[in-house]
Each structure stands twice: as C-alpha cells, then as structure tokens.
C-alpha cells in the first residue's frame, strides 16, 4: 500500500503514540481490504462511545490519555446513558460509571457531544454529495451514502475514531466509483399506490430489500418522487441495514446518484431483478411482529432518532388522542439537538401532558431503560423490531405511528384495517 510522507510521520509518532496507534489501525484495515492507498476524509461520525465492555473503554482511554485528538469535525453516536435524564437508566451502577467514562473520553478527544444516531438531522453536520467521510452506525452510513450522496465505508468499532484522528481511510469499498453501482433491481410497480403514499410502507420495504439484496447494492424503481421524504428514506435505509447490511441504496428519480435507472447502474446491467409483490410486503411486515399478545407494556418510537418533522406528526396525534394509558410507557428517542427545537416550539409540554417520555443521547434498545418488559412493546421502527427481542429481551409488535399512538392510549394493540386492506 502506498503511504504518503505525512502518513509515515503519523505512524512514526509525530502526533504522539495514540495517533500512531490510530494510524496503525487505519493502515491495517487498508491492508486487510486490499486498498492501494489512503484517502482524506472531511468529517467523521463515531459509534465507539457505546459501552460494549472493558476493551472498548481500554481503547478509548489509551487514545485519550496519550493526548490524541480528532483531526476532522467528528460527531458522536449514542452512548449508553441519557445524560439529560439520568434517572431513566435501570442498569448496574458500575457499568454506568464505565459507560460515562467512555463517553467523556471521546469528548476529550475533541468529538462533538451530539450523542445521536442521526447526525444527518443536524444541519451543520451534513456532508455534501461526493465528499469522503468516515461514518459509523449502520443507519447513518446508509443515509450518508444513499440520501446525501457522500461516500463512506461501513466503519464501526475502533476504526471510526482511528479514521477521525488520522483523517485518513483506506481507498476501498464504497469510497470507489465501481462499488457504488446498483446490481440488484427492486421493481415496485406491483404495489398498490395507496400503500406507497403511507409512512408505514418504508420501514417494511427496507426490511424486505435488505433481506433480498444478498450483499449487492440495490436500486428501487417506482417510488413516487413526491412522497419519498427524508424521514421515509431514513426508515427505509435503517431497516435495510438491519436485515441485510445494506450500506447504499439507490431510489431511481430520488437519490442523488440515481437520476435515472441507467445512471444507478452506471451503464451496466443488473445481476438480478426482484418484482416486489403485496405478498412479499405482507410477509416482511409480519416478520417484524413476534407475538399475538395484545396487552402492551410500552411503545418505543424514534429508532433512528426522531426528527423534528416526526415530532410535528406525533404531537397533534397525542393532543387529539388524549392521555397515554397508565400502564403503558411511551418512549420517544431523539437527539438533544432536536429536543431543543421541540422545546422551543412548546411541544415538550404537550408530550409531557400526554404522558410521553422523551429519551436523549441513547436509545431504548441498546441500554436498560424500559420500565416494563412483561408485555409486548409496539414500535413503528423495523430496526427496533429487529434488534430489541435479542438485545433487551422483549416481544415486539410493529405498526404505523398512528397505530402506535392509538394503542398506547387504549393500552392494547389497535390496528387500522384500512391501512392494510390492499395486502
């Protein structure tokens, strides 16, 4: 692998032992992926601040104590604690102490304490099309690549902050043109138009696309341009990343690298095509529910973190619907940045009046927050439905935002029959 003089100086310890360690990791990954050289990145998003055990803390401490700092603007993903509402944490205090030390170590290295899995919702941190970045967190990666047209590989533990410190990444994977073209087509022309107009389709569709992509970059043909909001594309990408490790998708006529099908394919031919049927959508939807039980323990919204636009939909539903059932907890996970905007609009009062609990800096499926786990938890997130049963040990029920709110108020799972009648 070709290294520049600057790369060699970093390896030799010019910026200290921590920065040299970071560079050894970047170079090691470059060798492992067969990269010929390294590239500069403009920014980074680091996921290592979520506590996974002593090794994650030992690594961050080693870097922070050596004085290593990030060399590009770097945002932080969720940690294990809600620092604004510390009382929500129900885990063991020793783990909490280490999780807090881990979060602090990343701030000491110069990362911004954004604590969000949706850094793309913070306008100051949106990379532009074609820009190379080092982003971790699967939903952020797929959003950056697909919706923003920026370029990032699937970075994760250890390599994320190493790339942020070095400001360099291996020139491989999705940083390179040839790996970004679509190879599998999903034809949506067989789906009822009404379903394509509803939010609930997007996480289900993403889940289905992930399962059928088989590691190839997918292109979706037939999404109506006017209805594909960023929130819907967020839900679609997060679901596809959960079920199939999708790190880039093209939505023809919508996403920046796919103004046309021909451009999504970069002039090539697709390896295969999938005709999406209503039956496939029904199966994907049903795979996101693990129980027939109706009596809810909780509702969890905001995975990935709720946007201001999603709060704008939730608040009137709660204001019209009335108070949440006393035995049901309704959690909404978001960033502290979006929470500030929510407060400014006076919406936090409405949420609290209805009995909703806003969670920031973390998420309800990565750390012990749920008060009750003795009944199903309902969610409008395919990602939450995919991970929560194993991560926090609950049964899940998937539904639309309206179904979630209706169910939270009544205390049991309520369905909107009209929503699903076409399947």
């Amino acid at each position: 692998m070709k290294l520049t003089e600057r790369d060699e100086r970093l390896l030799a310890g010019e910026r200290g032992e921590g920065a040299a360690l970071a560079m050894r990791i970047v170079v090691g990954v470059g060798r492992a992926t067969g990269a010929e050289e390294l590239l500069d990145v403009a920014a980074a998003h680091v996921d290592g601040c979520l506590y996974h055990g002593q090794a994650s803390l030992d690594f961050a401490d080693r870097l922070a104590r050596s004085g290593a700092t990030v060399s590009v603007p770097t945002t932080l993903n969720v940690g294990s604690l809600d620092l604004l509402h510390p009382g929500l944490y129900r885990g063991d205090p020793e783990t909490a102490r280490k999780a807090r030390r881990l979060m602090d170590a990343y701030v000491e290295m110069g990362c911004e304490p954004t604590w969000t899995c949706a850094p793309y919702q913070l306008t100051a941190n949106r990379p532009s099309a074609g820009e190379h970045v080092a982003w971790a967190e699967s939903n952020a990666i797929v959003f950056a690549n697909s919706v923003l047209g920026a370029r990032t590989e699937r970075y994760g533990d250890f390599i994320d902050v190493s790339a942020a410190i070095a400001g360099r990444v291996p020139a491989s994977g999705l940083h390179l043109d040839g790996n970004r073209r679509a190879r599998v087509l999903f034809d949506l022309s067989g789906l009822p138009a009404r379903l394509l107009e509803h939010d609930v389709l997007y996480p289900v569709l993403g889940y289905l696309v992930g399962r059928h992509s088989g590691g190839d970059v997918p292109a979706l043909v037939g999404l109506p341009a006017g209805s594909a909001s960023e929130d819907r594309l967020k839900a679609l990408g997060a679901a596809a990343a959960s079920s199939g490790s999708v790190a880039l998708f093209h939505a023809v006529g919508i996403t920046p690298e796919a103004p046309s099908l021909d451009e999504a394919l970069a002039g090539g031919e697709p390896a295969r095509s999938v005709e999406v049927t209503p039956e496939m959508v029904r199966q994907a939807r049903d795979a996101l529910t693990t129980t027939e039980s109706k009596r809810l323990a909780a509702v969890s919204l905001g995975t990935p973190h709720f946007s201001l636009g999603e709060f704008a939909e939730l608040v009137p539903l709660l204001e019209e619907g009335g108070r949440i059932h006393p035995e049901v907890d309704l959690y909404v996970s978001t960033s502290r940045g979006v929470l500030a905007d929510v407060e400014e609009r006076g919406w936090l009062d409405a949420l609290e009046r209805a009995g909703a609990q806003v969670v920031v800096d973390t998420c309800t499926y990565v750390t012990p927050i749920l008060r009750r786990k003795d009944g199903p938890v309902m969610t409008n997130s395919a990602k939450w439905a995919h991970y929560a049963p194993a991560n926090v040990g609950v049964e899940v029920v998937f539904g639309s935002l309206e179904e979630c709110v209706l169910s939270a108020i009544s205390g049991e799972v309520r369905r909107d029959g009209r929503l699903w009648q076409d399947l």
Partner: protein
Amino acid sequence: VTGVSGRTFRGHALVLGIAEGEATVLDEPLSFWGGVDSSTGVIVDRRHPQVGSSLRGRVLLMPSGRGSSSSSSVLAEAMRAGAAPAAILLLRPDPIVAIGAMVGSELYGMSLPVLVVGEEEYRCIRTGCSVSVRADGRRAEVRLED
C-alpha cells in the same frame, strides 16, 4: 486431498502473530456480537449448529465473519478475558475480524494471527486437527500436524 499430515501451506496475513491449537471449523457463519460470550469464548447463538462449543484457544476456521461491526469489540474483549481463539483462518478478508484482533493485540500485548487461506487448503482442515500458524512480516504459514 487426504494424508495432509505435516503439510505446510501459505496464507495471506491480515494480522500478524504466532499461534497453535486444535481447529474448530464452523459449519455456518457466526457473528461474534450476539453469537459468542466474550467472557468464556462459548458460542451462544441459539440458531448456530455449534452452539455450546468453546472457541477459547482454538484455531477458528470460518469463511468470513458476519453482521455488526460490534463484533470487533467482542473479539477484543474475549482476548482481554483470555477467552479468544488462538488464531483465525478465513476464506475472504474480513476487516471487522481483523480490527478486533489488531486492537486486542495492541491493548493486551497478545498475538491473534488472522490469515486468509485458499479454499482447497481450508477444506483440508477438519475440526480437531492440530494446526500451527506463523505470520511475521515476511511470510504467513499454516502447518497441519497429526
């Protein structure tokens, strides 16, 4: 290929190191995250056919890792706990596995060589074979013993 006792072949080193142990060949892909208990090295993924087997001190053969990047942390944590495999042989390069082994080596001064080997050689190795692995800056070798 039969009668491979004492056979030595080359691989491509993703992470350098020296190790030996009995082989465990995985029948299906495995995600360390959610799939292996980092304090014991035991496979805990209930959907995996080898659930309950321990990877501690074994030369682990798997085509490639699978799933979340958090698997890097689980591997490094298993190294800290002394519960990690002795070496890992892959069919395809896997940066997530390589990162975990690199970080564990850096933090805890241990050696966990990770090599990519050819398909024919990979298929010669059965669970229970004694295997030694040596990957330094110049060469990466795998040797099968009886």
